[in-house]
């Protein structure tokens, strides 16, 4: 069996012989062990082995990409040939390019599989949920150990070798008492270690507690403009919708982003800072390089409410004349504020706490409208009744400007660090 670097080098040599302008190869070898518990019992143990090989080719300013999952000589030769044909079929665009910053870097961050401990921690989680949260019904618990070795090479002497592994824990459950149920809650976290019982990770306990309360959710009859306290998961959802519409490649190349002229200007409340990190110690499995072959580095998208950067690939950066993003969207880090979570709630006269947003994909205008799932009414600084069939609507552009509080506490799930965020001026409507 080849190593990732051997597979990548073999493909790259074939492409070099074809006198391409530039080419990049990414090869990875992965093994996944996944355990599923269903109805409180272990039900499935799944082991998958995979190899992948991805090719990017630029020739005569035309670009083609291809991926396969075989490292056989014949398969790679065929892939190189097909990719060149795809490339030749395309149209010239001078803005396609790869990193020319020669580098050779190796990142090793292994976590050996401890299957017995993974099984025991999973059984323990299921048992603890049954004991501590008797009105929680588990759909399933999925725990995963994934290890991969990969190699990235491009024709400009760029080489990254990585060797990493971690555990993921996914939980889906609902509150259930008799025939009454809450909606499903999906949550998860990523970790390098099995030292801590899974139930103590991320904010699992808080969400399990919420599921029990949400069994008694009732519709609200009124409609008002109030404050929405976004859970970390919900704010992340909304933020990524905003980023897709306002700072992404397509929105800026096409010129339809409403932030296209906002670099260096205030686009959010001064309390909001948004980092995309590849170095924060709270992140597990950090990004190493971008698809163009640049070493990934931290960058700050929004600093104290001011738009500091777009999130552009090298192609989009060349196309628009802006700077490329320093990473490919690494780990989202939003620094917490000065207000404890309990005080954030105390300061809300009327609004709702929202677990996640189930809504239509916001349009380029930023308008959003959807169901406030797993939500609770907040009145006079206190969390009151759980709600169902409650909708919220507004505009992402306005919402980011209307942040009134950011909690001190944040949820760390291995892939992001995000606090609770309160936003004024959102239309909340009941049945």
């Amino acid at each position, binding site marked *: 069996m080849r190593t990732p670097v051997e597979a990548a080098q073999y493909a790259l040599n074939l492409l070099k012989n074809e006198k391409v302008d530039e080419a990049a190869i990414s090869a990875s070898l992965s093994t996944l062990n996944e355990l599923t518990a269903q109805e409180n019992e272990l039900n*499935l143990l*799944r082991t*998958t082995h995979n190899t992948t090989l991805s090719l990017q080719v630029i020739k005569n300013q035309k670009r083609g990409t291809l991926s396969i999952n075989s490292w056989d000589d014949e398969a790679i030769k065929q892939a190189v040939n097909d990719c060149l044909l795809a490339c030749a*079929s395309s149209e010239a665009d001078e803005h396609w390019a790869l990193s020319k910053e020669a580098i050779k870097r190796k990142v090793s961050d292994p976590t050996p599989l401890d299957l017995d401990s993974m099984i025991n921690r999973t059984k323990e989680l299921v048992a603890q949920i049954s004991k501590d949260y008797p009105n929680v019904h588990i759909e399933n618990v999925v725990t995963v150990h994934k290890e991969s070795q990969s190699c990235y090479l491009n024709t400009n002497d760029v080489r990254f070798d990585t060797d990493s592994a971690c555990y993921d824990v996914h939980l889906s459950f609902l509150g259930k008492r008799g025939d009454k149920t809450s909606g499903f809650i999906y949550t998860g976290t990523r970790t390098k270690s099995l030292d801590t019982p899974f139930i103590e990770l991320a904010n699992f306990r808080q969400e399990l507690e919420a599921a029990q309360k949400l069994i008694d959710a009732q519709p609200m009859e009124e409609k008002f403009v109030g404050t929405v306290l976004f859970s970390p998961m919900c704010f992340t959802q909304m933020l990524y919708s905003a980023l897709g519409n306002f700072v992404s490649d397509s929105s800026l190349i096409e010129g*339809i982003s409403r932030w296209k002229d906002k670099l260096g200007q205030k686009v959010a409340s001064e309390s909001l800072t948004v980092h995309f990190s590849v170095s924060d110690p709270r992140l597990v499995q950090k990004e190493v390089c971008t698809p163009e072959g640049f070493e990934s580095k931290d960058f700050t998208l929004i600093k104290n409410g001011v738009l500091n950067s777009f999130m552009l690939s090298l192609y989009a950066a060349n196309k628009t004349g802006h700077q490329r993003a320093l990473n490919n969207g690494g780990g989202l880090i939003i620094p917490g504020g000065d207000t404890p979570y309990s005080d954030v709630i105390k300061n809300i006269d009327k609004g709702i706490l929202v677990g996640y947003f189930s809504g*239509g994909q916001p*349009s380029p205008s930023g308008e959003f409208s959807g169901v406030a799932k797993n939500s609770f009414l907040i009145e006079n600084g206190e969390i009151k009744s759980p709600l169902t*069939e409650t*909708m919220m609507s507004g505009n992402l552009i306005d919402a980011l400007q209307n942040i009134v509080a950011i909690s001190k506490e944040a949820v760390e799930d291995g892939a992001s660090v995000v606090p609770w965020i309160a936003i004024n001026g959102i239309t909340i409507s009941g049945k």
Partner: protein
Amino acid sequence: MLHDVITPLKKQFTAGATTELRSQRNLNRRVVIQGGRIVANTRQEQAGVNARVNRGGVYGFASAANLSKEGAQQVLKDAARNAEVLARHQLNPKGAMPAIQQGLRPVDPDMVDLPQQYYIDYLKELDNYIAKKYPGLASRTVVSSCDSMEKLLVTSDGYSAHTIAPRGYVYVILTQNTKDGVPVDMFEAFGGRGTFDKNFIEPSTLHEKIDQVYENLMKKTEGVYAEAGVKTVILNGMMAGMLAHEAVGHTVEADLVLAGSVAGPMLGKQVASPLISLTDFAHTAFGQTAPLPVYVDDEGVKADDVVLIKDGILTGYMVNRELGEKFGMEPKGNARAWAFSDEPLIRMRNTVILPGKDKLEDMVASIDDGYYLIHSGNGQADATGEFMFGVTMGYEIKNGKLGKALLDTTVSGVAFDMLKSVSMVSDKMYWSSSGFCGKKQPMSVSMGGPDIKCQITIGGR
């Protein structure tokens, strides 16, 4: 086409266990032209072999990116080992699964894997048409896509099959600014079952449809916000299909019933207006091949239709072999896996509300103040049947006539409550098959239905 190295290995299956051995290949070809520039031009292929072994009620699964005989032997061994590992932790071992029908589904015709040039040429011509005819657009994106799934399945006690299922689509997304400079967009998908070249021969055949997309977009630029609240609406058949899939279909998947979905206590009870019947078709619907036919599922079960709601009464769930036994229902081919590395999950196939007898024009005429909701961007629902659909195209209905176009909005409700409010069902059937359903793995699914008149909560502003 996949070379069959797995059938001879059937004799190596573990005695006393239920075993499935599957080799599989997924292809995806995609081109995106945005504003006249090719921004994506990609070909993807993944192939491999997997085995799943059930012993005493627990499953071991293993897969490898290796289509050789040795690869297949190894995954058989690994899957059996994984089942044994889990069995050691099992509190209540179960007996063998009930028997299912055995047989062989012969191989489907092989498909043509088109060169990338075909997708690019077709799309460039389409893009040129849009650019020339509608130069004032704020943005235009056209996408050509073809995905296909080839599976070779051998089972210990069910059907064996060799299936090849391609589908090809063109997506068009047009954007224009309102007079206030706010961008609005319109999306449309064309295509269906079959390879791209079968669905798209001559780009000019799409011109009229693209003109319609543009016309709808222009109306939307003059659009108004819907008024929030509970309204009488007509859901177009595409949205009725979304309702069938998201809000009802998922709640009657047996794994979600087991997890506590709202459908659990409702079997045999009235959950919808008597005008509503809902079926998950396997491969043939209304006398024709369904948009995405399934003949044998990945547990080797010969596929058949599942009647979920009949005249408003909840009549069944979609099950796999394991949960069919638990719920006392016959498995009918809903266990499907997306990639070679995926285990079969309970999935929908062609899920539709059946058409009624009303005429759409009579339905519109019957509403004084409401909405006709035509296109949905996306949809979600949960175990309670509470659903949400994004609405990307719709019209006001005022005094029995269509009025102004709507800006993007959302509708929501609780499926079994909302379906009881259905008072008219049109005789026209609409299908959609371009989407993916996400449930741990993606899956190609189709959905559809007629226009239905009902009460629903609309988001507005």
